[in-house]
């Protein structure tokens, strides 16, 4: 049907029902409502069972860090330097066009030294690039057997955030906001913080934290670095808070009128967001002011913590957001796309994230917050064992690799101090316990108290889920 016609029909239909309800059934309807609504009425769908995690801090390493140079320890490769990647390993898998034309696929072992750190099993190997992260291995659940469908950044990140490679679906944080609602009416439920990396960067679209077809108030709110954390949040010169209040009230009245005329849900979202912004005028300055942090804590996050927008500052901000009850805090660290000059770029990238992310886990832990906060560290896919471009003893690059990669989680009902899954000797194929992105989503939702098959939203004639028609809960990693 013509959308305009449908819209008009919707209008008259609703108006009819409203008028009818007003005259005839007002009594019965109102009565039924009052007698049913005895308890607190909750307008959100979940949770389905007692949650293990109340909030999520998701550290997304944008560009896909190399699992071979960080967590997937393959000492055997050191004796296969510059050998051809065997067919029996590659099995004709499609490659990106960046390397599909290469003459050779020479094996590039990691040149970084690995150290085995204490965990709750027989230890976890972590490379010299992340010594601080290694030292909290007893808190981490490292999954080495992740795999994804996408082979390029945009679809890869979109898939990781929304469960679908095509844009347009709600992101994970939006689903969580929709499912659990806010725990702090002074701040957004879903906050995004971005750090510019030093390595090769890829585009970062705001739709990664979009709410898709879910109502607009569930979309992620990006906090900027620097003095203007939220643009235009402060009142302009000469406008008092009382004046602002009056303006908002007047605007809300007009918006309500418009809403009753057009029934556009976006208007409701707009009213709610204006109110949120008004409250954030008070809550955000308090949030971003680190002056109440003691020296010892600041030192733990590393020397960059006082530089707004650095990964260290964002990690500390993430802890402060978690403390204030924000449900979903997503940090993007850009610059992990090492097609060339991998050793040099990864050193700089790792230096920026290692100490802060370990500090975040320690800090949450000692404050008793790690119990119900789930920390997730992940890129969108892995990187190839063979070198892209020239391979030397000091330098190499790696192409995109969706068949296996490593991520870690901590807290929030996940088994601490374990390593799950395994890859073959080349870190190319998974040989044990594969975990797909849908499985990961299902598991995360499980920890948050949701049956991933029942958290749905009706849109365009059918129910949608984060996990589409896939996903299974990875039970062995649950505490």
């Amino acid at each position, binding site marked *: 049907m013509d959308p305009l016609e449908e819209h008009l029909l919707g209008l008259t239909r609703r108006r009819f029902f409203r008028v009818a309800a007003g005259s005839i059934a007002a009594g019965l309807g109102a009565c039924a409502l009052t007698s049913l609504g005895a308890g607190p009425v909750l307008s959100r769908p979940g949770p389905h069972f007692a949650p293990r995690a109340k909030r999520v801090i998701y550290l997304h390493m944008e560009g896909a860090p190399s699992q071979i140079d960080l967590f997937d320890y393959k000492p055997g490769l050191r004796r296969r330097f510059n050998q051809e990647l065997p067919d029996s390993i590659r099995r004709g898998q499609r490659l990106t066009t960046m390397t599909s034309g290469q003459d050779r696929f020479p094996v590039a072992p990691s040149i970084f030294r690995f150290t085995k750190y204490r965990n709750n099993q027989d230890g976890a190997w972590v490379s010299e690039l992340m010594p601080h992260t290694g030292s909290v291995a007893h808190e981490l659940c490292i999954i080495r057997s992740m795999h994804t469908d996408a082979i390029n950044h945009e679809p890869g990140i979109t898939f990781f955030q929304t469960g679908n490679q095509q844009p347009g679906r709600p992101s994970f944080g939006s689903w969580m906001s929709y499912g659990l609602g806010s725990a702090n009416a002074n701040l957004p439920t879903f906050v995004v913080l971005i750090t510019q990396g030093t390595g090769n960067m890829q585009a970062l679209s705001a739709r990664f934290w979009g709410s898709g077809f879910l109502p607009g108030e569930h979309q992620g709110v990006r906090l900027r670095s620097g003095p203007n954390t939220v643009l235009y949040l402060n009142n302009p010169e000469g406008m008092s808070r009382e004046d602002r209040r009056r303006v908002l009230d007047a605007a809300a009245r007009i918006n309500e009128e418009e809403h009753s005329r057009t029934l556009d849900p976006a208007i409701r979202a707009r009213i709610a967001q204006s109110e949120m912004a008004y409250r954030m005028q008070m809550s955000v300055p308090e949030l971003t002011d680190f002056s109440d942090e003691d020296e010892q804590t600041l030192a733990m996050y590393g020397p960059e913590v006082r530089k707004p927008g650095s990964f260290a500052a964002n990690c500390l901000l993430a802890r402060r957001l978690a403390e204030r*009850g924000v449900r979903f805090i997503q940090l993007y660290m850009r610059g992990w796309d090492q097609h060339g000059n991998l050793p040099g770029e990864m050193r700089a990238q790792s230096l920026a994230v290692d100490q802060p992310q370990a500090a975040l886990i320690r800090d949450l*832990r000692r404050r008793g917050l790690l119990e119900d906060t789930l920390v997730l560290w992940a890129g969108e896919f892995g990187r190839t064992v063979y070198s892209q471009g020239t391979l030397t003893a000091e330098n190499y690059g790696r192409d995109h690799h969706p068949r296996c990669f490593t991520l870690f989680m901590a807290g929030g009902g996940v088994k601490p101090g374990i390593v799950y899954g395994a890859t073959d000797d080349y870190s190319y194929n998974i040989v044990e316990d594969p975990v797909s992105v849908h499985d990961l989503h299902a598991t995360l939702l499980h920890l948050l108290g949701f049956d991933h098959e029942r958290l749905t939203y009706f849109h365009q004639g059918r129910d949608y889920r984060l996990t589409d028609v896939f996903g299974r809960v990875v039970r062995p990693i649950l505490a």
Partner: protein
Amino acid sequence: MNPWLEVAGRFHVVVLHLPIGMMAGLALVEFWAALQRVERAPALLRVFAVLTAVAALVTAGSGYLLGQDRPESSTLTLHFWLGLAVAALAVLTAILSFAGGHWRRRLALLAMLAVLVPASHFGGTMTHGENFLFEPLSARSAEAEGERGTYEARIVPILSTHCYSCHGATRSRGGLSLHTAEDLWKGGKSGAVIVAGDPGASELIRRLRLPLEHDEHMPPKERRQPTEEQILEIEAWIAAGARVDRSASPTEAPRRVGEREPAGDGAVVRPDGAAVAALRERLVHVEEVEPGLLAVDFAAVARDMGDDEVLPLLAKVAEHIGSLSLARTRITDTAMAAAAEMGRLRHLDVRGTAVTSAGVSALAGHGQLRTLILARTKLDDSAAESLARMANLERVYLWESGVTAAGVAELSRLRPGLLIDVGEDVGGELEREGEVRLSSDAPPPEGERGAAALTPVNSLCPVSGAAVDPRFAVVHAGKVVGFCCPNCPREFWADPAKFAEKLEPTR
């Protein structure tokens, strides 16, 4: 008022049934007439319509009289006007049955019936009380999923499909039957199969989760197995207290202490709605984690909250609080004394407050508390003794709480199993790799045919038909396929089957 008039008024509750029945009858006659497509309104209908109008007027009149000695209320007002409307429409229907067409009359009748429903409902509300009609409904919805509904709707179907054939009404192998709630609780020869609230300790789940080959795995491996989702469903049901139908539930059903309110008749006492609203009004986060059990978190407004505001807000919902976070608020030991009164409190977070050992000692007798977060408080070592006395305490956070290493040692001596977190690292290195040396001397992996295997099986590119350049080869279905350029493989991968034919005839 004349007492006789009052008596006449009281007849309202009897007389009112007459017009209601007649209106229904009128509608039936009308319906019949419509079906028969009669030309004019039948006489029977006319008589009926007039009688109905008279009865409606008598009812309205008596109702008016009855209403005189009732206190003013909005329900009464609504009932009065709606009742009057019914009577008026009844008269209109009667008039239209003599004059006017079929459809006007039918419309009036329809309108009368429509108004009749709310009018009678409000009348009923006055005699039977608010919520009389929907009570069973709301009681049911209050039970929520995860309880009664779950057992009947989700658990029974699973058990009946997979278990009843051996553990049911006809057979009970191992002394175990699962087909009634009592039998389910009783267990089999080797004891109970369900521990409410703890799926991990429940024999039922252990058997389901054993590897298929295991002798004790249930159902036996040759039988159809329940799906993972179904097992999860049972686990969730047990974790939520394994509640069954009210009538079938034995009162002595095993229940973990504090897991759920052991109300005798199974009804859940809901927290006071006004008190919850007052908390939310102050932007305190309140969540009903289980029916009647609340999680309360002051995180959003912590800095502005002191004892003077916190305590009155919590007073009315105290017995419903299962989890409370007062972290970073300005509370003192007084609030700890208030927390001690919360009988179902399992999780308490007072991190970053001015709470002292005196406050902790107020909580000493608390039997339900599982987790206590005391990081960054103003305690001293005397808190150890109070903490040791909390019977069910499982985990305590003492980072920068003022409790010294000696205090921690004392606490772990008094309570050996207690998890005490003082913010210290337990990590460390186990093994460090030596210098990285790169070489190429490792033999190719088992079964690998070496670089020669990369020679394409075809001499012409399957996509373009041009000569193959061995640099552009892919492996497909165990064969190395050569192409003329780096672009052709992409087309090939889009649908390899399409090119299968072209690969065959070469060689």
